[in-house]
């Protein structure tokens, strides 16, 4: 397996990262080399041709046939969401013009795929959004981003200006920048922000696609999802399904953390790769930095799907393809496509505690079990880390986790519960040693995962 070598500018820091841009024939990230930055409209149109906006019903059928699922974490079938919005819009009165929201928040700190996609291929994202708008019957699209992803926001704004100047038959575009909070990327939080409220999740009576912003059908899709739509309408579902597997079709953007000071690498996975392959560092000569940066460590466990994903023992997932069906068979999910290994020599309890503490502080503080429960979980793990806990406390911690599940207005607490529950199993030995107040023998530090300080504002 060969991987294309092309350095990418980290949209956050402007440093060059040893991103591997997927296998040859990458799709979303095909085209000009990443170091050249955003693909201008002219090049985009020359490379992919015009966007065929035919009969929306036909396009919807094609999307259905593609089997595309959302890439924002939930993995919901795209055609079903769009069909629900379309049906709700046509059932309502003329004032029920639907909303289409492109979710560019990428609130998951460990993921770089969305900001990189927006930075490098903004027109692919906007093309997909134009298609979604045509299907839903919306005449306006809001691209919702988070503060701090400046390069992505700038690329999107420039792309919008280019499209306006070119007079494309587009919906009206609006690029909105909301707070850089984890839960603000949740779909109902985005809807709340777009209504002028705080970017906090809401308790929904109806699905957003039926009654979202101001009661109107509201489609919220991740930027990667939109980019796939742009390719499906151009080249067809059959072509699109040649990537991936039958049960998990299409290519997928994956952010791999492999230690070393350079942080994350972004890959576009066209043929399915196993978690082990994803974690194998490229040969020194294939690295953009010529192999100068420390390449990797031997993983003992892997966090799959993001900070609120699930832990798995490295030897148990090494051979598992990173596809939704193969991961589901071992109780995992691709989530937003993050693969974050923990070195064998690092302490799993400390890793869980650090993650839980950050995630607990990111609660929107609206729902009791989320606000108080996650804080208790973080504290329990902290006590365990400091070896002032006990096996009884660990048993109680498990009970607390069961009490929290399903008790939030959004799925934030469920994600944290899944991360900790899986961690308690995967790191059972570390947990037991800590609970007996014995040293766990860890010699390595935790990886330098990003933990951005929470923003105060919710607007």
């Amino acid at each position: 397996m060969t991987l294309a070598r092309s350095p990418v500018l980290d949209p956050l820091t402007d440093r060059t990262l040893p991103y591997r841009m997927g296998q040859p024939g990458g799709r979303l990230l095909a085209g000009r080399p990443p170091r050249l930055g955003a693909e201008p409209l002219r090049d985009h149109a020359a490379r992919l041709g015009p966007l065929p906006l035919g009969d929306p019903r036909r396009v919807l059928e094609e999307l259905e046939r593609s089997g595309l699922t959302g890439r924002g974490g939930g993995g919901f079938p795209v055609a079903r969401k769009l069909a629900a919005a379309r049906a709700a819009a046509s059932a309502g009165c003329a004032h029920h013009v639907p909303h289409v929201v492109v979710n560019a928040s990428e609130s998951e700190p460990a993921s770089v795929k969305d900001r990189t996609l927006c930075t490098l291929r903004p027109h692919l994202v906007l093309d997909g959004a134009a298609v979604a708008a045509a299907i839903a019957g919306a005449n306006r699209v809001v691209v919702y981003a988070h503060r701090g992803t400046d390069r992505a926001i700038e690329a999107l704004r420039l792309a919008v200006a280019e499209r306006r100047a070119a007079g494309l038959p587009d919906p009206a575009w609006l690029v909105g920048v909301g707070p850089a909070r984890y839960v603000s990327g949740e779909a109902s939080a985005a809807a709340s922000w777009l209504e002028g409220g705080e970017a906090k999740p809401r308790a929904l009576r109806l699905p957003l696609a039926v009654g979202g912003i101001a009661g109107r059908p509201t489609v919220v899709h991740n930027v990667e999802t939109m980019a796939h739509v742009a390719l499906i309408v151009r080249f067809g579902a059959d072509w699109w399904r040649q990537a991936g597997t039958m049960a998990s079709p299409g290519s997928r953007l994956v952010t791999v953390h492999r230690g070393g000071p350079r942080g994350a690498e972004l890959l576009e996975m066209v043929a399915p790769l196993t978690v082990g392959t994803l974690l194998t560092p490229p040969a020194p000569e294939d690295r953009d930095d010529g192999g100068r940066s420390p390449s990797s460590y031997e993983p003992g466990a892997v966090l799959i799907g993001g900070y609120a994903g699930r832990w798995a023992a490295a030897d148990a997932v090494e051979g598992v393809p990173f596809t939704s069906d193969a991961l589901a068979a071992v109780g995992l999910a691709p989530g937003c496509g993050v693969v974050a290994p923990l070195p064998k020599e690092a302490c799993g309890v400390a890793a869980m505690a650090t993650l839980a503490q950050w995630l607990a502080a990111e609660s929107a503080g609206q729902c009791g079990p989320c606000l108080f429960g996650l804080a208790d979980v973080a504290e329990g793990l902290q006590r365990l880390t400091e070896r002032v806990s006990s096996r009884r406390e660990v048993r109680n911690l498990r009970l607390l986790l069961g009490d929290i599940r399903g008790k939030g207005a959004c799925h934030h607490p469920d994600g944290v519960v899944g991360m900790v529950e899986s961690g308690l199993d995967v790191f059972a030995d570390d947990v037991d040693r800590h609970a007996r107040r014995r040293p766990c023998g860890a010699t390595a530090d935790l990886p330098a995962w990003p933990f951005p300080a929470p923003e105060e504002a919710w607007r």
Partner: protein
Amino acid sequence: MTARLRIDRTRCAGHGICVLFAGRTIDLDAWGFPEVLEETIEPHALPAVRRAITSCPRQALSLEEPPSPAGRRGTP
């Protein structure tokens, strides 16, 4: 006919008043927030549940009468 008790957790402040009225249907969790014991409310429990709903100071409770084709929360 079966109904479901819905709790808007962004509203609920954990006063626990609901439990005083509908203790058979609602319990309090480790943090003093309500937990629905029975997924569907049997007809004989409905009057108590209705009293709990009207007594909740935050109007966090509601009855979800079927059919609700839309699914409960989150997606799509």
